[in-house]
């Protein structure tokens, strides 16, 4: 397949947050990310799927080097950024950029579009003023905006247009990886489609890899090469998108697919809907975190942590994964 090391590789990546110890001495840790491993190759899209509290935003913060992981390794182009010093992180920053969920909060309201696009170049001291302006105008055209937008302020644009500006800004430093944190969740249906198409086109043109965080499985189906399903800080199932959608093995993945409303299905299927809600991240559970809601849970699930089973190209963290569905 691809030669050379993968662009991004995580091994048992973990991030715990500690509560400040008050006089009551509660030293519990929130296991926001609890041992996640995956690889992402250049020009591919890895979708991270899960509901609130699963750790996908925490993962985004580790990959963009805003935070340091508590344990595990994170290799960017073969170099360990989890244990990197500030100088190495500064050097690697241009390689990983981010697009945020809320287009109304992710652009500095006091800067013009042109200034916003040029800011990363200014920070990284690239090019003269004239070169920066040229680069900004070129990027504006690439995301489907016009030169007259250069001098306008963000509040004059719609949500979809702002998100295009955000994507353009993320690409100014020619990153090899863009972390997209629910980039279309806040947009209307037809705007979502426009931005998705744009992201797909840019990936083709620039060979940039995406770490695409989403909660909407229908969207993920459209653009993901590989999928990682997360629940309460752990990866419960991961592998090629076709395999996961075609033959989901983990009960949580099955529940997610069953719960996602689809145009094809006619009536919400009451049997397949999972019960209850996700447990808190602080409760130190023995065994599998999903067992309280799992329709296939057995006695062993409360005692043993689920092993990671490999079925074809898919890795599933479930004791009963090998059994027929």
């Amino acid at each position: 397949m691809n030669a050379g090391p993968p662009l991004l590789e995580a091994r048992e990546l973990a991030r715990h947050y500690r509560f400040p110890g008050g006089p009551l001495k509660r030293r519990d840790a929130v296991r926001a990310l609890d041992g996640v491993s995956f690889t992402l190759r250049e020009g591919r899209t890895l979708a991270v799927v899960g509901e609130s509290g699963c750790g996908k935003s925490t993962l985004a913060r580790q990959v963009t080097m805003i935070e340091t992981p508590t344990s595990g390794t994170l290799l960017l182009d073969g170099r360990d950024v989890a244990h990197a010093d500030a100088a190495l992180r500064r050097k690697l920053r241009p390689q990983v950029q981010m697009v945020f969920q809320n287009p109304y909060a992710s652009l500095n309201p006091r800067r013009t579009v042109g200034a916003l696009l040029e800011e990363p170049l200014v920070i990284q001291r690239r090019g003269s003023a004239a070169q920066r302006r040229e680069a900004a105008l070129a990027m504006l055209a690439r995301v489907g905006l016009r030169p007259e937008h250069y001098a306008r302020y963000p509040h004059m644009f719609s949500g979809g247009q702002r998100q295009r500006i955000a994507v353009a800004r993320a690409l100014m430093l020619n990153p090899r990886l863009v972390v997209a944190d629910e980039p279309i969740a806040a947009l209307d249906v037809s705007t979502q489609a426009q931005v998705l198409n744009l992201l797909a086109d840019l990936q083709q043109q620039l060979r940039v890899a995406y770490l695409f965080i989403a909660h909407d499985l229908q969207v993920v189906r459209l653009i993901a090469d590989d999928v990682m399903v997360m629940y309460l800080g752990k990866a419960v199932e991961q592998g090629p998108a076709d395999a996961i959608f075609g033959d989901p093995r983990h009960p949580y993945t099955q529940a997610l697919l069953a719960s996602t409303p689809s145009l094809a299905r006619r009536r919400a299927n009451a049997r397949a809907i999972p019960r209850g809600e996700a447990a808190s991240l602080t409760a130190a559970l023995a065994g599998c975190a999903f067992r309280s809601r799992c329709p296939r849970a057995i006695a062993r699930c409360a005692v043993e942590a689920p092993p990671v089973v490999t079925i074809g190209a898919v890795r599933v963290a479930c004791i009963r994964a090998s059994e027929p569905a």
Partner: protein
Amino acid sequence: MSGKCDALVEIRDLRVDFGTPARPLPAVDGIDLSIGAGEIVALVGESGSGKSVTALALMGLVDVPARVAAQRIAFAGRDLLQMRAAERRALAGRGIAMIFQDPHASLDPCYTVGNQLDEALRFHGNAQERASKTVRRERSLALLGEVEIADAAARLRSYPHQLSGGMAQRVMIAIALAGRPRLLIADEPTTALDVTVQAQVLALLMRVRDERAMAILLITHDLAVVAETADRAVVMYAGQVMETGTVPALFDAPRHPYTRALLDASPGHGAARERLRTIPGVVPGAAHRPPGCLLAPRCAFAAERCTAERPAMRRIAGQASVRCHFALTAE
């Protein structure tokens, strides 16, 4: 389906105007809507379509600088526009109830769940409930059970910030059901929730509808949710209705280009990793509505007639209608 003549809700030619008489900004521009008893009608549209404003107008919640006008807004046969303000207030919450998108913004953070249920029952409960605190408490417990909240007695003492999103939304539904409404308006009730919780809440709404024969006006932008829960759908664009029809017929064979475009743009519609067909341009703002058909500047099928003349609503078979000069035929 219920007959048209005893529709629970009948709205004819509703107009809601923001702005000044000199420079009107129509949010809703001539809407007809009817809901039968026990029917789930979905009001579908993107932002700027006017769907939320329609619901607020029905509830009488549109505030003063905006002007509401209609030929008829009738609930259970009585014209709401002819009623005095006090009568109309009494109707809101009892005959019609409403739940909103963000439960944590709609529940008062300073009062417990029990307190808020008690308040709802004090105003909208039946005679015994209004009189006795004990009866109200019993009913509160029953309501929490109906929305599938375990450990109801403990939940009555909880504050909203102690509840998860899904649980808070169930509490909102319980409060809405306190007055035994015949119509529940749900404005994007599941948009802010996780997908598994969304499925639970939608199933809950449908179960409640079945048990109480209560009608639901579901406002949403998610076509898949509409496909799974609604009996009929009304598609809105820029303040007007573009198409109505029964579900699933509406999605199997859409007549209006906008409905077809919405379907094409929905991620679930196409195959994996296939490019979505999008509509170029953006929804016209209230101040920039085109004189002809509202969709004409963006419509792939627009002809000269479309830019000159605004089409009227045309009844097609049964309960379907469409507002287009050249309605698509089934392909």
